[in-house]
């Protein structure tokens, strides 16, 4: 193994351990009470991490499937890695959801008495389906089977469905105007492609893949970013033009996090430009920089899922008997003892230290998981070829 790869492996282990410590602290020291979340700002850094990770997972799988489908020989090795990353990241995303649960002790009820109307149930089923398909696909890859293409396609399709479902998980909550658009599921998919392709491109550069391959990946990524930015700006445009009290609240919440929002637009845009500019270049460094910028921008995007949703009140009252809107209605934060107000209209959410720590868990799982999966595949390969 190369030195850099080994370093990544060790880093992954460290993150995994730290993340477990963070989660353990949350479980014992008052579960989620040490966090910055409230009854207004219900999902925080961990759910942002879930979305972040699942984007890489599904996206990496989609990239891998695309490689398998288009039969690009120079990228086959990469496709193998991408598939492994796909499973590891989706698994990590699942771990993130579990780590965010307040009462994980009751998790078995998701099996007995599952509510099929719930988007979370669909998410669980889609993730499970993906895991199964991905495992089969990986075994096929490991055995160098002729069926790889079929299973890769199925896994890729499942990844697409997974992203649509998760987009729906947000967009079906009509309470949050920021999410409740038909664009959301599509954009979720686009962001997955962006994430996956950026990550795979980064790894491709690290591995010294040749320029045709890099160019293919770079184009895929850049176009995906372009699509995503168009969708994101369309979303913003819809909100800006609506002119209702609710949409004004969304704009205000965005304004309250302007640096973060600007980052989510500017960073991927910059990356995209770099990619278009250096597409044919064999040099890896600019593309790696571009990928990094895009990844950070996507993290900002995932965080910006939350603020305009939770800090934009959903309930605006009118003076009874009239049509005059008076204003939004406060919510009990549920965080009196260690908080500043009992009731509020929004939460200036800043993840608590233990949340940052726990957020390392999905990253660690993803990294370590990738290594473990690749190792397992190598084992299967070697037994297959024996």
């Amino acid at each position, binding site marked *: 193994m190369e030195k850099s790869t080994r370093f990544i492996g060790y880093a992954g282990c460290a993150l995994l351990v730290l993340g477990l410590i963070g989660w353990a602290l949350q479980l014992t*020291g*008052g579960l989620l*009470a040490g966090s910055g979340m409230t009854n207004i700002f219900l999902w925080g850094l961990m759910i942002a991490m879930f979305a972040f990770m699942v984007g890489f997972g599904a996206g990496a799988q989609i990239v891998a499937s695309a490689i398998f489908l288009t039969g690009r020989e120079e990228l086959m090795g990469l496709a193998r890695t991408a598939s492994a990353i796909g499973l590891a990241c989706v698994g990590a995303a699942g771990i993130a959801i579990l780590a965010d649960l307040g009462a994980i002790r009751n998790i078995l009820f998701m099996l007995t008495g599952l509510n099929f109307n719930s988007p979370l149930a669909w998410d669980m089923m889609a993730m499970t389906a993906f895991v199964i398909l991905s495992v089969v696909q990986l075994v096929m890859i490991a055995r160098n089977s002729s069926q790889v293409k079929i299973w890769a396609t199925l896994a890729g399709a499942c990844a697409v469905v997974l992203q649509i479902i998760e987009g729906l998980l947000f967009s079906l909550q009509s309470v949050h105007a920021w999410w409740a658009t038909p664009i959301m599921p599509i954009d979720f998919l686009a962001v997955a492609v962006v994430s996956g392709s950026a990550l795979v491109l980064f790894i491709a550069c690290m591995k010294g893949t040749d320029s045709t391959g890099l160019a293919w990946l770079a184009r895929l990524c850049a176009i995906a970013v372009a699509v995503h930015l168009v969708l994101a700006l369309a979303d913003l445009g819809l909100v800006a033009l609506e002119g209702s009290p609710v949409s004004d609240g969304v704009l205000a919440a965005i304004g309250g996090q302007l640096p973060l929002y600007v980052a989510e637009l500017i960073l991927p845009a910059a990356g995209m430009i770099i990619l278009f500019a250096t597409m044919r270049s064999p040099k890896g460094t600019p593309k790696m920089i571009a990928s990094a910028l895009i990844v950070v921008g996507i993290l900002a995007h995932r965080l910006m899922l939350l603020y305009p949703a939770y800090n934009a009140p959903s309930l605006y009252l009118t003076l009874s008997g009239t049509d005059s809107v008076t204003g939004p209605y406060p919510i009990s934060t549920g965080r*009196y*003892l*260690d*908080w*500043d*107000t*009992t009731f509020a209209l929004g939460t200036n959410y800043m993840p608590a230290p233990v949340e940052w720590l726990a957020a390392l868990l999905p990253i660690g799982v993803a990294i370590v998981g990738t290594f473990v999966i690749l190792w397992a595949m190598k084992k299967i390969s070697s037994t297959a070829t024996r």
Partner: protein
Amino acid sequence: MREMTRRDFVAASAGATCAIGAALALDASIGSAEAEALTGSAPFDEKWIRTTCSPNCTGACGMMAYAKDGRVHMIRQAADYPYEHYNPRGCLKGLSINTMLSGPDRLTVPLIKDEDGKQVETDWDTALDTAANRLKEIMDEYGPESIGVIYQVQGTGHIQKGALVRIANTFGWSVIGGYELNGDLPMFWPETFGCQSEELESYCWEDSKLTLIFGSNIMVTRMPDAHFLTYSQENGGRVIYFDPNYSASAERADEWVRIAPDSDGAFALGMAKTIIDEGLFDEHFMRTYTDSPLLINTQTGKRILADEVVGVQAVADIPDYRSSFVAISQTSGAPVATTPLELPDNDYALTGTYEIALTDGSTVEAKPAFQLLAEQLEQYSPDAVADICNVDADTIRRIARDAAQTKPMHIIFGGGTQQWYHGDLKGRACALVACLTGNVGQLGGGISTYVGQYKTRFNTASWMAPEGSIKNSCPFHYWVNGPTPLMKAKYPKDGFKAIVVGWGNPLEQHNVANWLREHVDSGDIELFCLDFQQTLTATAATVTFPCASWYEKTELTTTPLHPYVQLQQRIVDPPGQAREEIWIFTELANRIDPSKETLWPRFAPEDSEKRADEVLALLLEKGGPTIDHLTPEELRHGPGKLAHANPGEKRIPFWEQINERIPFPTVSRPNPLDATSKFVRSGRIEFYRDEDIFLELGEQLPCYKPPFEDTEYKDDPDARVLYPLGYTTRNSAFRVHATYVNNPFMLELQDNTPKVWLNPETAAERGLKTGDWVEVYNSRGMVEGQLIEDPGVYPTQCIFDQGWWSAYDNKTSYNSLIWPWINPTNEVYYIASVWSPNMAWNETACNVRLSNGGAPQIVRDTGKSILDGPIPQGSGIEYAKGAES
């Protein structure tokens, strides 16, 4: 009228749920037989016991409490008042007192100050002996009248609290009238009607067709009664609410009239002028029941006595507190003597100028009081008044006509408008409107004041005035101002040396101009305190006695707001070493002077309830016709209704005067009638006061005088510029004065934050905005709070919600800004709580600025539990446990 109430859920046919409901007899049920199909749960019904919630709010709401493990675990309203519309009563504060009864601020151990002045826990004997010895020393050296007694407050307790009055009367301590100490004595009442105060019980509000509310935020300060105004509206009545500031009561009214602060009196005078000018006044009422026809010597300003007039003989056999005056008979055109013994129909002239020959040989010009009134009102035309009040003249005329032509019409004149230096003038003007429109003595009509639970509704002397009573009293005003030349109250020869305070927190609530704290800190005044919460007063006292709360003893309560006598009952034992006050005072009396044992027969602490029962029986038996039909047994089960003079379900104030022509005043218990009758010697409602000081001040008739001219600006002309805002320490929805300040639920609702309200423009002028931590200040003191911009606040006002213990507010006290001005009209006579200098809380000028310090830690760390949790122990104030630090 929406007749359906919570009690009527069960439709006539659905008797099924009554099986459960019947056992309780009083609970509402959903109204359907299918309720039995639901999974049942344990009702605990047989374990609920009734008591009465009793802070000084006039609610006196029946509560049922469920005890578990010796603590009150749940509270709900009893809602068992026979007059259905009274139900349910209760409010958010009393319903959550279970958090305080066994909370960390509960006093459970007697406390005394050791030699270093530090307060330490002790046993009952030491505490009682220390207090007894110290009090005896003070009595011996300075006289018993040097010991002041603060007793909060009359109607909330006649047995246990009554024992403090009894001991004061036993030794001759000076009772500091709580009514005027709290600013609640509405002086216009004795000045006009000769009585302490009067009011409709709230169930009369639903009978009013027009209610004018001045300075009384009923929806906040009378939560249990507020719905009667709504019922009035649902019955086709209207409510007009006068207030410089918008409030919950403005919102529920039909009309809000935003008058300038302290201008209510001017508005009423403008109304009076309109009513008289347009001939809409009730001539018969004015002639029969008021001093309107009585002749005034225009040169001396004095009422002319019958005996002074040639050819007129005073009515015979009148007591020395009455006088026979003179009026002009329209039939004969000649002066006749008026009788103060009854109020017959008559033909007296209300207007005109007359020449009266006096027995001393002179002839004087005389006018009936009504004539002088009409002349006085010339300067109060609606156009003139419009400027004072900052409303338009047409509004005044319109409302005046409305008030005159809608019956019954009820004026509520509240603390917010009365607690100014010239509160009496304003009240007299409003009383004038009530009389001109003939609404006094009618069901749902007249004028009422609602402030504290002051009223003695039956004869209490059997317990409170023991044999050999020495009754001393002196208003708190004189402690702070010192004796004045005009005072009629008795000032102790060496001043005051001690206060025995029961169930009050004067170091916070009566700490005007920081006076009391300074004198206690310097040792000039010693405190002896009884309470069930650990207040600042309790922590500063030489001796503090922990008491039983309203859930832990037998006590008798009444209130002016409803006609029911209720008991507090012992649902749980007082925690720790807390004991019933009746035992505490018995022991104290005996230890001060063992010869008093006949008055104070001793008993063991565990026999306190037995003794309370005896006193209860005594009070009922000897209480007089309003109460002696009630028995202890029936009161143990629910409310008992006081008797009243007029026929019909509801008591009508002054009914006997208006219908049976008995002269004014009504009795102001516990004073005998003759003590207060001299306030209205004529036996009539008096709008003209001819005592020298009234004449000197030009206040013989109701008039308008602006705020601060005779007080703040006279004291310090710079105040006009330095302190341009009016300071109002209003009552909060979350407290009854300072009671409940440490209720955890109330604190949560307020984020532990004392607040200051300003109009946005007023704030902007000072560069302030919502959320800033500010200081409200004047030359005397300062209080801090978080600023809230509120367009509903009048631009010249600054509002602070009173009742915050200073521990929550960086040790600042809202009362430190206030001075107890003495209005000389309040010194013409002295009867404690009837005619006495009254605290004019609102007569305070102030200004607001940004605070250099920040919000106190307790505001930043909202309430913390001392128990294990994510919050470290010892951080933050545990519900003001750190008050002494």
